[in-house]
């Protein structure tokens, strides 16, 4: 999506010599088009919220005040159901238990980021190693790996996750494990394909002739060549990962309650949608903003590092 803007821009106009006065408005527009300023800003905000949640959140995300149940956001006059007015303490209003929406959203960023980063790093690591092995050694390794990849792609993940959580009871560890089990395959498949390509290259053949061990060839000659691909897949996949986690939380099998997860906040707000829209609107907006920013950045990074992966 972002891809086309970026590349197209570089080929168009801007003669090199023109160095006179540039209209500041145009300059801003140019920077906005060339660099993903807004998405980067959203991600920065997210990271800050995630890291500093205990200090940033004005209220306890788990404990509400009964007299502050169902407060509307500050720009509303009153809540249509409890007839309470807004309070500056709660800029985005409160939920049915009197908990501050803003604080819960800030803490939600922490859980979302925690899960996304753990899953992404382990999935990338595992998928890359397996992909390298399958691609380099081929044969039975390759066959086994590809069938496992097919399995994770073919089985409806949400249903298996739902069933697993019901069997084992929901916990952070289980959610992370499940998401890892289904996120490594994307890495493995692409790394395998890249490894096959690199293995056929002259410099690898030369290394074999020179008597290098398989381990040395993989780590010194193949791995550096696939790292870009891994980075691109990770940056493209993170948005999807956050969406999946939010969906599981929405269905009630994600991050266990009472921890504030954006998905489960939307689920709670859903019951009050005809009277207190803010309970579902803001957490969902947070998910949307983050996924949008991650997708945009992912496209941008892909176009810088590896435009061949456009089809992904």
């Amino acid at each position, binding site marked *: 999506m972002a891809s086309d803007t970026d590349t197209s821009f570089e080929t168009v106009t801007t003669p090199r010599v023109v160095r006179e006065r540039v209209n500041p408005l145009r300059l801003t527009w140019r920077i906005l088009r060339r660099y993903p300023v807004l998405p980067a800003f959203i991600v920065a905000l997210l990271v800050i919220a995630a890291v500093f949640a205990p200090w940033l959140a004005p209220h306890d995300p788990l404990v509400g005040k009964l007299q502050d149940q169902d407060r509307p956001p500050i720009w509303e006059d009153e809540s249509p159901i409890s007839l309470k007015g807004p309070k500056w303490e709660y800029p985005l209003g409160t939920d049915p238990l009197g908990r501050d929406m803003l604080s819960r959203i800030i803490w939600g960023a922490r859980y979302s980021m925690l899960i996304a980063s753990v899953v992404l790093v382990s999935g990338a690591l595992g998928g890359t190693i397996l992909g390298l092995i399958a691609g380099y050694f081929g044969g039975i390794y390759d066959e086994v790996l590809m069938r496992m990849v097919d*399995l994770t792609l073919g*089985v409806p*993940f949400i*249903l298996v996750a739902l069933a697993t959580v019901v*069997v084992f009871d929901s916990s952070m560890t289980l959610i992370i494990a499940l998401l890892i089990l289904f996120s490594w395959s994307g890495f493995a498949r692409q790394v395998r394909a890249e490894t096959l390509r690199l293995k056929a290259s002259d410099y690898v053949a030369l290394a074999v002739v020179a008597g290098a061990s398989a381990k040395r060839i993989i780590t010194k000659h193949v791995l550096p060549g696939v790292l870009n691909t891994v980075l691109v897949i990770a940056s493209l996949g993170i948005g999807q990962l956050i969406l999946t986690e939010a*969906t599981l939380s929405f269905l009630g099998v994600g991050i266990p309650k009472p921890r504030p997860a954006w998905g489960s906040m939307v689920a709670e707000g859903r019951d009050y949608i005809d009277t207190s829209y803010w309970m579902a609107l803001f957490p969902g907006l947070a998910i949307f903003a983050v996924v949008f920013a991650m997708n945009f950045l992912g496209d941008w990074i892909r176009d810088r590092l590896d435009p061949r992966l456009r089809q992904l």
Partner: protein
Amino acid sequence: MRRLLVRRLLAAIIVLLLASVLVFALSRMSGDVRNLFLSEYTTDEQWEAWGREYGLDKPYHEQYFRWLSGALLLDFDISVKEQIPATTVVLRKIPNTLQLAVGAYVFAMLMGIPLGIFSAIYRGTLLDLFARGFALLGQAMPGFWLGIMLILIFAVYLGWFPPGEKGDLRSLVLPSITLGWYAAAALLRLTRSAMLEILDSEFVKLARAKGASQTTVIVKHAFRNAIIVPLTFAGVFLTALLTGAVVTETVFGWPGLGRLAVQSVFGTDFPVISAIVMFATAGYLLMNLCVDILYGVLDPRIRQS
């Protein structure tokens, strides 16, 4: 081509078997089926008799083969909740989900393909900006939230459509958009990039050079070639469909497969869950096989390799 298809078919069967092991393991780990009928009047003899009836007195591998041979004949045991065959329970819900799927597919096609084509032709214009915004929204909005917001705007505030519950055709609109937007976004991006690539290709340049009009170039040369890409999209769509259906049907209270799946999971009705997972996996594999074949038919370059 034939060898490739045989290989694919074998691979699909292996995957299906792996999925069946996974499902069987999960269903056995969910606890003893007999606990569901256990009451204070249950005698030891009755307990043992139930065990024999469900084959629980055999070792696990025998139980698995019994389960598998049943599954091959589409027999997934009796639904715990409804006390009728799980397959029947699942089959009854398929028409409802199919309606939703068709609605979503129509929405995805109507929005995705024309917007993708025109945004490639009028690249950089307002229309292109709109199309790309549409795609960005579709890929970043969580389905459950989109559904709730559509209800908020079009059912609660405007009152144009019913907020949920299956009824007349109007009740299909909001769920279809919820389910179809993500697919529409993917389709739009695919069509757009395929179209851009083709508009830049040699044969289109040649057509232009020989003086063909813009309409002829686009309709006769570009469009025909760009349409191959979205065809493969059916496979992708089907995978996204079931996940989407779980969420969409939950939000709108739609009586389809997705809602059945969620209800069965929370009611630990494992025969029904097994049936749904196996049907979905088989459907996905079958769909991909069909796409492979279709691809070979449409694109001679693939047939030879």
